[in-house]
C-alpha cells in the first residue's frame, strides 16, 4: 500500500523512533510514523498493545513516562476519551465551552451542539444525558477549539451497538465537514474498516500493518469487498480461523 497522500500534504503528526516504557517494560518500541494532514486513520491493537500509550504520547499527556524519540504534532489538538468526561457540575453548553476563549465562544458552542444533534439541550446537566448524548457533547467540546488533530481513544467503546453505529456516521460527517487529522484508537476491526481511510495495527510496540482502505464512503458494514480488509486485519491481530 503506497502512502498516496504523502506528497500532497505535509504530515500533521510525525513520529521518529518513538519509545515509551513503563517500569522497564517497553510498550512502544521505536515507532516511525507520519499522519498526513486531514486523514482519518484508525489504530488497532490488542488491549495492552500500547494504542492508548501512543495516543497519550501524541496528546502530550504522558507525564513521567520514560521514553525517547522525536514527536511533532499540531498546535491545536483535541482529545475524545472513552468516557464522555463531562464535568457533572457544569451544564452541557458550559462543558462544551470548557477552555474555549473569545467573545463568540458561546455562539461556536451552540453551533457545535447543533452539529452533533444536541440543540435544545444546552441547559441540561450531564447527569440528564444518555450515554450516546454525553458522547455527542464530548465530540462537540472537541470541535469547538477547531482542532487540527483530533485524537479519539476508543470513543464509542462504552456505547451500545445501535448508538455506536449512529455515532460512526456522525464522526465521519463531522470529519468531512471540518477535515481535521483524526487518529481513532479502537479495538473494533469493523469500526476501523467502516470509518478510516488508513488502518494501522500496533503489534509488540511497532506498527505491524499499515493498510490503506480505498473504498468510497459511506461504507456499508455488509460490503463484501471490505471482507478482504477484515481478513488481513484479523490475521495481523493474530485471530485465525480456528479462533473463531
Amino acid at each position: 500500500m503506497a502512502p498516496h497522500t504523502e506528497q500532497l500534504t505535509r504530515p500533521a503528526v510525525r513520529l521518529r523512533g518513538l519509545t515509551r516504557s513503563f517500569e522497564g517494560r517497553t510498550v512502544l518500541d521505536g515507532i516511525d510514523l507520519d499522519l498526513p494532514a486531514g486523514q482519518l486513520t484508525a489504530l488497532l491493537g490488542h488491549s495492552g498493545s500500547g494504542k492508548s500509550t501512543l495516543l497519550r504520547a501524541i496528546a502530550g499527556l504522558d507525564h513521567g513516562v520514560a521514553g525517547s524519540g522525536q514527536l511533532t504534532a499540531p498546535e491545536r489538538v483535541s482529545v475524545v476519551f472513552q468516557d464522555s468526561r463531562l464535568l457533572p457540575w457544569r451544564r452541557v453548553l458550559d462543558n462544551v465551552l470548557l477552555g474555549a476563549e473569545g467573545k463568540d465562544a458561546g455562539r461556536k458552542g451552540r453551533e457545535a451542539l447543533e452539529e452533533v444533534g444536541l440543540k435544545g439541550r444546552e441547559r441540561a446537566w450531564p447527569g440528564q444525558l444518555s450515554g450516546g448524548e454525553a458522547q455527542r457533547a464530548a465530540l462537540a467540546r472537541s470541535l469547538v477549539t477547531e482542532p487540527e488533530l483530533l485524537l479519539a481513544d476508543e470513543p464509542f467503546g462504552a456505547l451500545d451497538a445501535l448508538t455506536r453505529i449512529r455515532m460512526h456516521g456522525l464522526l465521519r460527517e463531522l470529519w468531512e465537514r471540518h477535515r481535521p487529522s483524526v487518529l481513532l484508537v479502537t479495538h473494533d476491526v469493523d469500526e476501523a474498516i467502516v470509518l478510516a481511510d488508513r488502518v494501522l495495527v500496533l503489534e509488540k510496540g511497532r506498527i505491524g500493518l499499515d493498510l490503506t482502505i480505498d473504498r468510497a464512503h459511506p461504507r456499508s458494514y455488509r460490503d463484501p469487498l471490505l471482507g478482504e480488509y477484515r481478513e488481513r486485519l484479523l490475521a495481523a491481530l493474530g485471530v485465525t480461523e480456528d479462533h473463531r
Partner: protein
Amino acid sequence: MTTTTHTTATAPAALAPVEGTHQVRRRRRLAPGKRLPATRLVGPAVVLALWSVASAAGLLDAGAIPAPWTVLETGSRLWSAGTLPNDILTSLQRAATGFSIGLTVGILLALASGLTRTGEALIDGTVNLNRAIPTLGLIPLFILWLGIGETFKIAIIAIVVYIPIYLNTHAALSGIDSRFVELAEVQGLSKLQFIRQVVIPGALPGFFVGLRLGVTGSWLGLVVLEQINATSGLGYMMFQAQNYGQTDVILVGLVVYGVFGLISDSAVRIVERRVLSWRRTLSS
C-alpha cells in the same frame, strides 16, 4: 424448558397458562413504600402528646418535668422580661463569631493545603495533630492565655468548627478525579482556570459535609462553654436555673438550643441543595 408445571389456581380463564409457564404475579415489594410528606414530625408530635397527657393526668412530678404549657409560660415570661432575648442574642453572637472565624480559617487552610505541596507539608499534619487533641480539653489553657471573657469562648468555637471543615474540604480538593485533571490539560486550561472551574466546584460536596458538621460543632461548643464558664447567655441562664431548681427555665433553654440547631442545619441544607442542584440529576 423444565418439566415442572406451575398450577396457578387463580389463573383467569381468558389466559390459560401454556405448559411450563405460569401466570406472572407481581413480586412482594421489599423496599418500604413511598414516603409521605412531613412524616418525620410524627415522632416528636407523639412524644409531645404523651408528655402533655401525662402532665395533665398528674403522672409526672411537676418539679422534675414541668408540663409543656408551664415551659411555654416561663418562656414567654422570660421573653417579656427581656432576659431571654438578651441571653439568646449573646449566645447567637458567640456562635456566629466563632463559626465565621472557624469557617474562614478552615477554608483558607484547606485551599492552601489542598492546592500546594508546600501548604500540605506545613498544614495537613499540624491540623491532624490539632484534631487528635479534644478541643474542649484546651479550655483551661485558653482561659489562662485569653482570660475568662469572650475571646477564649470564640476561640474554642472557632477550633471546633474549623477542623471538620478543613478535613472534608481538604480531602475533597486532593481527591479530585484524575480524569478531570487530564481533561483540563487537554482543553488547555490555565492553573487558575483549572482551580476555579474544576477543582473548587468538584470539592464543594465535600465542603458541605464539613460545613454541616461545623454548624453542629459550633452549637455543641457553645453549650459546653456557657454551662461551665459564662456570666451571660443561654447556658448561663440554665446554670442559674439549676441552682434555684427551676426545671422549667432549663427546659426553655434546651428548647431554644434545639430550635437554633434545627434552623441552622436546615439553612445549610437549603444552600447546599441550591449550590449542588446538579447532584439531584444523578440520584434521580
